[in-house]
């Protein structure tokens, strides 16, 4: 008849204490592991230096390119393109998602068209882009914009569709008009989805540089990667990959910051 007792707060208390390391430091574990793998692969000669440069060689390349100022220049140029492309792409994707998500006729027209366009390789449209937009900065920005629109659209649209109908009803019940409903209920409710799209599209934008910077340019991180590949300078190539990875982490950190401030109302499952 005497039930077994336990401290219900105990287990997790202990776990929390063990997690005294700050979150950003713990998040270095992943990249650190990758670095280790890289050391191992190149150190134990699992792959020739010709195919994949070792960390040492990449560090040398970084020093060389940094010293000559090339690296900073290329990053700056690419950042400009990515910045514009993302800004435009996010705005357009968001607008389309709201139209498709909020109005039934919008869904009929926009959503199927977007699903049709989404799988079309934008790089196959490069000739068309050149004919219509030319070979200047606009073309590169357009390419990035086109790539960014879709993840933003898809995720935000799905986010809108997942907004609890009960909250929409509540909004209506208290006299919110269409604009008010979008601003106060639909957009905040779709925000988690939008942020996934944002995280994804910030990555895609950098990826698209590899294609965008094939057209009439001699700077940018994508250009650097392309030339390194042509030369088979694996040290520069791997350096570019590392930079890409770090940019990915940076974008992720940025979106995490956004999440922390925009989704502070949320109590989601955060792991055990």
């Amino acid at each position, binding site marked *: 008849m005497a039930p077994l007792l336990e401290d219900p707060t105990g287990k997790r208390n202990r776990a929390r204490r063990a997690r005294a390391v700050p979150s950003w430091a713990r998040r270095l574990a992943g990249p650190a592991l990758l670095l280790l793998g890289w050391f191992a692969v190149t150190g134990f000669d699992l792959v020739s230096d010709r195919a994949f440069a070792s960390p040492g060689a990449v560090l040398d390349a970084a020093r060389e390119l940094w010293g000559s100022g090339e690296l900073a220049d290329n990053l700056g140029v690419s950042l400009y393109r990515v910045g514009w492309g993302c800004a435009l792409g996010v705005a357009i994707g968001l607008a389309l998602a709201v139209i498709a998500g909020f109005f039934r006729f919008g869904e009929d027209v926009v959503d199927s068209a977007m699903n049709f366009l989404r799988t079309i390789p934008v790089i196959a449209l490069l000739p068309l882009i050149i004919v219509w937009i030319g070979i200047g900065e606009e073309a590169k920005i357009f390419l990035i914009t086109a790539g960014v629109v879709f993840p933003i659209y898809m995720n935000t649209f799905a986010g809108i569709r997942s907004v609890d109908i009960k909250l929409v009803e509540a*909004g209506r019940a208290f*006299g919110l*008009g269409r604009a008010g409903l979008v601003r106060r209920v639909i957009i905040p409710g779709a*925000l988690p989805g939008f942020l996934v799209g944002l995280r994804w599209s910030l990555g895609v934008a950098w990826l698209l540089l590899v294609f965008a910077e094939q057209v009439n340019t001699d700077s940018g991180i994508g250009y650097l990667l392309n030339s390194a590949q042509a030369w088979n300078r694996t040290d520069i190539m791997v350096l570019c990959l590392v930079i890409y990875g770090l940019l990915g982490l940076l974008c992720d950190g940025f979106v995490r910051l956004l999440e922390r401030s925009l989704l502070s109302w949320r109590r989601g499952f955060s792991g055990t």
Partner: protein
Amino acid sequence: MATRILRDLTGADEAAAAIRVRGLTRVFGDHVVLDGLDLTVAPGEFVALLGRSGSGKSTLLRILGGFDDEVSGEVLAARRRAVVFQEPRLLPWTRALGNVVLGLPGADVDRRGRAALAEVGLAGRERSWPVTLSGGEAQRVALARALVREPDLVMLDEPFGALDALTRIRMHALLQELCRRHRPAVLFVTHDVDEAILLADRVLVLTDGRLSLDVPVGLPTPRPRAHPAFAALRARLLTELGVRDLAEAAT
């Protein structure tokens, strides 16, 4: 109370009303929830709606609120209406005050929202996120959200279910005060028979998709629970609700 007169009129011509429902039927699958229901509520009238769990009270309110359109029958409701849902339905991404003033136009919205929050006993909680509110606190924010408006028709779906005795008494007073001030029609769903008798001009019981009972309360206000008419009405309502063993439930 002018209840009886108004009801007589509505039978004949198009008298003023806040709700007018004729032959309302709502079916889910093969489950007939509302089965040709008729209901007229006069402007300024306070009507309590009782009924067993699952009898269709919320369904009726959803239809009157305009959130369910797969119905047959004739439905009319005041254009300016406010609903307190059975769950608080606060926007989780908006703080308490923001939820109260949601969709309110005008300049002094903030002040009115704060005042409404204070009235439901939540002064100082303006900036709380809904997830941090207790069950009763959330319910009171939802109540404040309805009370801060001045609609012609207020529908409340068990608005005091999660409140303790004292808070409940305060909310009763608040609701009565609102009715005195703006005289909206009120459709009030509750499970508490005493509460229904205490507050309403008229009490309805929903059974099997129709109003099986529709009685005016006709007691003076304030209404002493000890009044014999109070006890009689309570007994009648409880019987209608299926509680036969009065000794157990009705003191």
